[in-house]
């Protein structure tokens, strides 16, 4: 089978399997988030938490609970890193530097998993499994909770109540993420991913050198890292490391885990609003953009249009032999289309246009299909913007799912959209304005600019992948990118919950002849158009200075 055909079969096989599982998983999550029974583990947890699971919350209380949980998480994770040398399983590593620990705490709590450190030489095993991996679960569950709260806003009428944050958080962890992660971890071990608590073992190699074979609870962390669209690697080189991603089929499986929940949530949404076809429309938008992006990334990487790939004969720099160019490109597209940010190859060494695709995927706001939860609420915001734009064209009051999109709703949606571009462009401008900060770039010229633009895009969109050449473990970058991650995560969440609250209060508007149908291909096309136009208008000048300048001139 030729490289290209094999690459196509690889993509098609992912599509087929995702199409088969999105429905049962989406239905399962519908039952998880709408069920009224609590299982024994959950009842125990609620008792320990001191919360009453049957009491629902207004959007304000829901948001405050979420923020309180996140603030405590940051503090605990920071403390765990700073004190790791005094606890167990530290591998003899010292406390993590204060600015790196702060950056990492925010990074994992916001589901970004930006890594300003090299795992194998910075983080002890207890920090990895009881600190970082715990946030992999809960930050993903928080994302799903926010998405579900927004969907409840559409589904409910004349109420202030959006559900109970603690119940949504615990159910997401216990009923959705934990069982899939456990099964996934064992599949990964079957492929060769390690799972132990050993210290590095020094061996004498065949030619008499020495090599340290590292240990660690990697598979358990790897599974939730992909499933929760987190992306923070156990090791510096993330999913390129053979102990994180041992074979070509574990590579397929990891891409599958990344896309699993984000592509199933539209089904959950459709069930919750009582119109499955609305879920299909949202899924169609996500799938259209995702497929186009995966194909383009593959085309650019396989073409290898740049001086070094031409000299080499293939874009193999920074790629593993067992994956090859095409599967690496597919992984790169999947990880940036979602908010994962795990990498199985060095994005910094991609061709200019291939690298641009990863940047553009993040700039789209990670909505196709996006992070767990975050992708669905981002896409619903874009649907709201689209009905508004369409309403302006024909002069009608815009409605979506029987809810009026009035001044308050559209203000919240617009503010949501403006948060990340403001963070990305301001941060990049500040970094490029100082000669001292420019010194962090590994590459010079347009590619160096791309490194900085990529860093701020990745942090503000909570992706976490990087053009790895940029030196980011400096106080300035740690603080600046930490702020981008925090604002880029929590400002949109607050706006989404406010929108949910305002939608839930409304009485439903009966559909009339003037209502724009939001389940037809026409609407799907319009949402795709709005998404691309918004991003192009916002980021084209920045892309022109970086990857376009490098790739087209």
């Amino acid at each position, binding site marked *: 089978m030729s490289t290209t055909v094999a690459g196509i079969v690889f993509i098609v096989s992912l599509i087929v399997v995702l199409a088969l599982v999105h429905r049962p998983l989406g239905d399962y999550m519908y039952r998880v988030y709408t069920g009224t029974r609590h299982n024994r583990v959950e009842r125990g*947890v609620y008792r320990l938490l001191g919360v009453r699971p049957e009491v629902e919350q207004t959007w304000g209380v829901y948001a405050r609970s979420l923020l309180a*949980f996140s603030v405590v998480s940051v503090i605990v994770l920071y403390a765990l890193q700073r004190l790791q040398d005094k606890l167990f399983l530290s591998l003899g590593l010292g406390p993590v530097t204060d600015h790196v620990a702060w950056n990492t705490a925010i990074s994992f709590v916001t589901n970004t998993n930006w890594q300003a450190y090299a795992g194998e030489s910075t983080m002890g095993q207890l920090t990895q499994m009881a600190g970082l991996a715990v946030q992999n679960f809960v930050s993903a569950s928080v994302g799903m909770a926010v998405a579900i709260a927004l969907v409840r806003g559409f589904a409910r009428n004349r109420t202030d109540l959006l559900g109970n944050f603690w119940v949504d958080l*615990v159910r997401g962890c216990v009923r959705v993420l934990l069982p899939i992660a456990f099964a996934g971890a064992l599949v990964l071990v079957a492929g060769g991913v390690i799972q132990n608590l050993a210290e590095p073992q020094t*061996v004498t190699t065949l030619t008499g050198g020495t090599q340290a074979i590292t240990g660690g609870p990697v598979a358990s962390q790897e599974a939730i890292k992909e499933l929760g669209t987190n992306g923070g690697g156990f090791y510096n080189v993330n999913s390129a490391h053979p102990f994180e991603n041992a074979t070509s089929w574990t590579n397929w499986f990891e891409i599958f885990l990344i896309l699993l929940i984000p592509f199933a949530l539209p089904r959950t949404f459709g069930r919750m609003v009582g119109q499955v076809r609305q879920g299909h429309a949202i899924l169609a938008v996500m799938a259209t953009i995702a497929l186009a992006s995966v194909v383009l990334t593959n085309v650019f990487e396989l073409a290898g249009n740049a001086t070094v790939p031409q000299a080499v*004969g293939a874009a193999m720099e920074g790629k593993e032999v067992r994956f090859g160019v095409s599967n690496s490109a597919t992984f790169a597209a999947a990880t940036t289309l979602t908010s994962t940010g795990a990498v199985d190859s060095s994005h910094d060494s991609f061709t200019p246009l291939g690298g641009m695709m990863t940047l553009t995927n993040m700039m789209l706001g990670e909505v196709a299909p996006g992070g767990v939860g975050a992708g669905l609420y981002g896409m619903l915001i874009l649907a709201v913007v689209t009905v508004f734009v369409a309403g302006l064209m024909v002069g009608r009051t815009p409605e979506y799912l029987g809810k009026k999109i009035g001044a308050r709703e559209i203000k919240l949606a617009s503010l949501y959209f403006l948060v990340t571009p403001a963070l990305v462009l301001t941060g990049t401008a500040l970094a490029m304005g100082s000669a001292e900060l420019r010194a962090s770039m590994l590459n010079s010229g347009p590619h160096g600019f791309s490194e900085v633009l990529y860093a701020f895009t990745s942090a503000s969109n909570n992706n976490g992948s990087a053009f790895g050449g940029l030196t980011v473990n400096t106080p300035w970058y740690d603080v600046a990118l930490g702020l981008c991650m925090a604002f880029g995560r929590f400002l949109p969440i607050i706006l989404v919950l406010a929108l949910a609250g305002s939608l839930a209060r409304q009485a439903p508007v009966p559909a009339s002849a003037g209502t724009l149908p939001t389940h037809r291909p026409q609407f799907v096309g319009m949402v795709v158009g709005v998404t691309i136009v918004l991003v192009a208008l916002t980021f084209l000048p920045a892309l022109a200075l970086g990857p376009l300048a490098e790739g087209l001139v």
Partner: protein
Amino acid sequence: MERLPSWLRLHLAAIRAVAVLTVLLGLIYPLVTTGVAQALFNDNANGSIVQARGKDVGSALIGQSFTDADGNPVRKYFQSRPSAAGDGYDPLATSASNLGPEDVLDVLPVPGVEEGRQSLLTQVCARSKAIGELEGVSGARPYCTPSGVGAVLKVFPDRAVSVNQACPEAPFVTTYDGLKVECGKPGEDYAAGRTVPVRGDTRTPVVPPDAVTASGSGLDPHISAAYAELQAARVAAARGRSLDEVRRLIEANTTGPALGFMGRPAVNVLRLNLALDRS
């Protein structure tokens, strides 16, 4: 609890939630997974360690350097890909090169002032030349000079400079677009010139792509089937074995693509070298 102010109640619940979920997801989950993984897939879970004469010599999943103490390739062993992990294949310092696809300009060394820096293009050219010499084939590549550096000109209105070739080396071309080509003077700033990589007339290089590029992890345990084939004759000669025998061992240590379409065929270098030592 009920009598506390609501903001305090919220934060107490948050603290308890972090504690409870840490125990469940941060201790019970990874430890149970470790137990089950150790029971079901003991070898995998512990890093697929391989042995020679009863001693651990590495992991089947982690590549090694097969070089002598001076860093020269050992002729009887198949060679791994270039590695950017520490000094090469160091699992405590995993890394890719992270160099971009248009990284073509070297910084020439000036003794005592500037140590210099090889661009990614020059690294590729130099590796290709060295491998060509080792295997007795042509190491020529597009965009590379015969001396094994990147063939790149900086073009000014009145002259052109082959910036990766330090004087007094003769430039790889004498003229460009009617302009005389000079050699590069270390320490001189050529930033103002237009960068022009010159493709040359090499079409398909003999040395395969994976042999001249560093992997994403710096620990890639594999080489391509083509790179293994290129090395087969040298290894057979160094060991006094027949080429067919060596080829059979290559075949036996090649995996993938899984299910016929996942990834590319990959030859495990450590397993192959072990098999050669054993047979």
